[in-house]
């Protein structure tokens, strides 16, 4: 019974969020175009290092000469990273600014389930974008290497679930910090850089590489590339899979605990309506 009630809350949040998203079609279209705009300079940068279509330097560094497939695969994971930071964490800040957060928090609905609804919308939208963008990217940039797609997807699923566990904890941070625009912007970008979504982490300076090795996304995307593109993995694929599964369990548990504690603290401070 309790679960049925909570699922009703999730459904209501999903309907509301999708309605708001569809109310601004220009934004939705531009968000779909953005990956193409970000990838185009990367593609031509790859071309400026390639001779007769061969990226010899990149092949020596990673084990694959298909630079674009390497970047696009990282971009798929990057879409979920951005969705977590902006779609879950930062959207609470937007609710604060619009003055609706306090009203929502005052209803008897469990706040964690409000966030789960928000996360569900975020997953759906990020997945929709990926499904729309991938064929466009394939057509424009002509990706060549496609290996074990099913294996890569099996790694992507726990990776995304773990990311959303982190997102719930991050929502707590946003509630506490209030002015979280810079934190969100820099945080999401930094995670993308250190976890090697656009470049192999072996090309990072040592300090950033150490940071990257502490982020589970690094192992997930590395294993996905090894399976699909045949790149040289940082660690054996089963080890990466174990790291992803373990981090999923930890982030799910940690996400809930951090959010509950910050939520209780913020209600004591009475700062929900201020920003």
């Amino acid at each position, binding site marked *: 019974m309790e679960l049925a009630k909570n699922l009703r809350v999730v459904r209501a949040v999903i309907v509301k969020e999708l309605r708001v998203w569809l109310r601004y079609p220009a934004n939705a279209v531009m968000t779909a175009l953005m990956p193409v705009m970000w990838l185009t300079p990367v593609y031509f940068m790859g071309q400026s290092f390639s001779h007769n279509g061969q990226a010899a330097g990149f092949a020596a560094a990673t084990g694959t000469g298909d630079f674009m497939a390497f970047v696009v695969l990282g971009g798929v994971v990057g879409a979920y990273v951005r969705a977590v930071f902006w779609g879950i964490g930062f959207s609470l800040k937007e609710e604060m600014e619009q003055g609706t957060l306090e009203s929502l928090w005052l209803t008897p609905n469990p706040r964690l389930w409000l966030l789960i609804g928000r996360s569900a919308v975020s997953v759906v939208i990020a997945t929709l974008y990926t499904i729309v963008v991938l064929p466009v990217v394939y057509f424009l940039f002509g990706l060549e290497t496609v290996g074990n797609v099913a294996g890569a997807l099996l790694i992507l699923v726990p990776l995304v679930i773990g990311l959303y566990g982190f997102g719930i904890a991050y929502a707590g941070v946003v509630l506490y910090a209030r002015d979280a625009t810079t934190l969100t*912007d820099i945080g999401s970008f930094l995670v993308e850089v250190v976890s090697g979504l656009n470049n192999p982490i072996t090309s990072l300076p040592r300090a950033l590489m150490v940071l990257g090795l502490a982020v589970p996304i690094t192992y997930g995307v590395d294993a996905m590339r090894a399976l699909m593109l045949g790149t040289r993995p940082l660690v054996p694929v089963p080890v990466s899979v174990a790291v992803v599964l373990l981090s999923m369990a930890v982030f799910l548990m940690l996400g809930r605990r951090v959010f509950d504690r910050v939520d209780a603290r913020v209600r004591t401070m009475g700062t929900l309506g201020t920003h």
Partner: protein
Amino acid sequence: MAATGSVAAAGGRYGTISRGHHWRAAVAVFRREWAVRLRYPTEFVGLAVWPVLFPAVYVFAARALAGPDGEALAVFQSRAGTADYVGYILFGTMLWMVLNITLWNLGGHLRREQVRGTLEACWTTPAPRIALLMGASLAQLSQAALYLVVAGLTLRVVYGFQLYGNPALLLILLVLSLLTVVGLGLVFASLVLWLKETDSLVFLVRGIFMVFSGITFPVEVLPDWMRAVSTALPLTYAIRSMRAVGLAGAGWGDVQADAAVLAVFAVVFLVAGGLAFRAVERMSRQAGTLSHY
């Protein structure tokens, strides 16, 4: 206040408005914009971090593309004219970031005022409206200059970024580039006020510059039709000429054609910005939509 010369009155019932009034209004907006900016100190964290973080994506990808033993460096050098791919990328990303910041700050200036409900209040005062926009433009110019100074310092420390060319020539090209970007921001501000949409317009315009201006690659690798588009964008000339001077030590003779094109772009955009503002101002007052959003 002693008038230094009469100009066309912005509002007849308030009498003649002097250049001194224009200046005072512009300075007031300049100070207010800085006061607002200083009110959000976390944005200054971004000021120090973004010049380093934004190019990181491209710099580290380029490092991998060059290969562990520089296998592909010769290919890049044959196309870009330099093997210094880090400096090459930093020039492009720095100028693109200035454009990006200008579009958000100056381009979104009028729209933000409209959303906050202060646009109508400001425009119904006797202060000349063009002077209010000039104040915002000056604030943006100073913020862009600050960004570039901070970027220059941090990039030197983090990436070992070094300039080789004539600093005076670089400064001339930089001023021409900034005037062009501010002019573009003015046109953009009016467009945003008219269409009542900031985010997607910023995404579109900055995306066009990102794709076609060669921020991370030489435009010579683009297909013909894309290269034709790149010649219509001022950032292409700004990036190319500043790279030539800053990385290869090119002289005035090498970049004067690009400088001339930039000067033309600056004049055209600044005049177009003024005209667009007048047109939108007239339209908004006639339609009574100043407070609509």
